[in-house]
């Protein structure tokens, strides 16, 4: 069926609207002046030198990347375990367990921030990296669980049974049959978890301490005091990085995974 002109116009306007602020940020990052402006009055790499020259930014970046990578790997492993365990569970147990895993999606993040903070205060982990890491695990869990459960649904389980009949141990059946077959789901889970963790700010800003901060929280607190193009420069670096991740995601699993996952969540 043909789309009507109105629909086309709205769609075209939105396809310009959505990436617009990103282009502005990229443009503003090359500004030579110390006040943020667009279009930039000239071109300079001054603010990139500032970002790369200041240890604070590099440390915050490394912290976020570190937490992101470890959180992605651990969440994916936990989610794989959960998906395998729940696959054969009775439907009632399975659906209530899934509700619990997906629960972080159902709560407003501001409320979750407080919830984690008071949990961590009780455990004396507030302001520690471990605390941020643990809360990121919970926040990433739904995003890791859904693609894995989806792939597990799609594969033919009789293949791993066949492997066991042919004499593979159950461990071998998992490592050399099941995991390779689950690759699309596992890589989507890794990517999603990394992006969620690396990007998380609303909950994390409740949990960071005086000794360390993550990159998004540092960008936020920098923005709250001043609006110089340092933030634009670091944002541009991030935009380039995330675009790279999108490209890899498209190569490895295809972007259709986004739509599939939504279907799964509501199905």
């Amino acid at each position: 069926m043909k789309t009507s002109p109105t629909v086309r116009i709205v769609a075209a306007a939105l396809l310009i609207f959505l990436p617009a602020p990103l282009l502005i940020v990229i443009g503003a990052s090359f500004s030579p002046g110390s006040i943020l402006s667009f279009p930039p009055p000239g071109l300079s790499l001054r603010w990139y030198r500032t970002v790369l020259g200041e240890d604070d930014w590099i440390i915050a970046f490394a912290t976020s990347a570190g937490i992101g990578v470890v959180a992605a790997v651990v969440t994916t492993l936990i989610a794989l375990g959960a998906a395998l365990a729940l696959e054969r569970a009775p439907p009632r147990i399975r659906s209530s367990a899934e509700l619990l895993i997906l629960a972080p999606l159902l709560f407003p993040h501001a409320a979750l921030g407080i919830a984690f903070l008071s949990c961590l205060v009780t455990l004396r982990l507030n302001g520690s990296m471990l605390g941020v890491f643990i809360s990121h695990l919970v926040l990433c869990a739904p995003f890791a669980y859904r693609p894995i459960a989806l792939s597990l649904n799609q594969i033919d389980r009789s293949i791993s049974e066949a492997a066991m009949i042919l004499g593979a141990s159950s461990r071998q059946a998992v490592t050399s049959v099941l995991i390779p077959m689950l690759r699309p789901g596992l890589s989507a889970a890794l990517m999603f978890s990394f992006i969620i963790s690396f990007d998380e700010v609303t909950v994390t800003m409740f949990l960071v301490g005086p000794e360390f901060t993550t990159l998004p929280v540092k960008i936020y607190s920098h923005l709250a005091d001043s609006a110089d193009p340092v933030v634009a420069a670091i944002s541009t670096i991030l935009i380039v990085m995330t675009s790279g991740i999108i490209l890899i995601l498209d190569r490895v699993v295809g972007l259709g995974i986004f739509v599939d996952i939504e279907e799964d969540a509501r199905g």
Partner: protein
Amino acid sequence: MGVLLVVFAAGIAGLVYSSFERGASLYLDLLRDAGIRAVLIRTIVISAVTTLICAVLGYPLALFLARSRNRNLWLVLVISPWLVSIVVRTFGWMVLLGSRGVVNATLQAIGAVGPPLRILFTPTAVVLGLVHIFLPFMVIAILSSLLQMDKRLEEASQILGGSRWQTFRCVTLPLSVPGLMGGCSLVLLMATGSIVTPLLLGGLRDRMLGTQIYSEIFQVFNFQRASAMAVILLFVALLMVAPLRFAEGRIRKRLGAT
């Protein structure tokens, strides 16, 4: 390993429960406070307006994507902002909307306004920022519903003489309502709980519940009041989303049955 997750999720639930036990007086005080009531109402209005705009704008875009041949290309444009930090996107809006920003410069250049308009640090800016952040979620929710739909139903309607608008109103729209509702409840939840966007774009006067909670902890250090507000926030969010979820379930069941 699954047990670990369940324990964490149960921990959250337990925490919410325990903050209810701290006594009702705290809640009564909060609800009697006119300032907090204003914040609460503002939160509800801003989230509702954001959700409505997302639905109205997101639907045509999803429809366009569903029927487009190079869907994946457009999909990249739609989700590209999604994968860049909320802080960065909000920052982009600060640059655009500021008194020396692109929007004001353009308006002044064409002579539409004299002194720069005050857009940044108003509720309008907050809604704009939130719509921008949440629109991709809405589009994807509606899109997946549209893609599941049997295309032949639309064709049948047209063959039977239905106009484009009739086909949309009687076939396409009703069949995609589950996706629309799902998208709405997602956006509503995220909008009520947002902190960063209202803090940066909204300024100090137009607080939302999320920003109020944040400043209660980090400026006033009143943990109990903040967690009571968090519970109120949770309650309000669930109250707003519950009818949508309920309706979605009913419609889904009906669609499944026919």
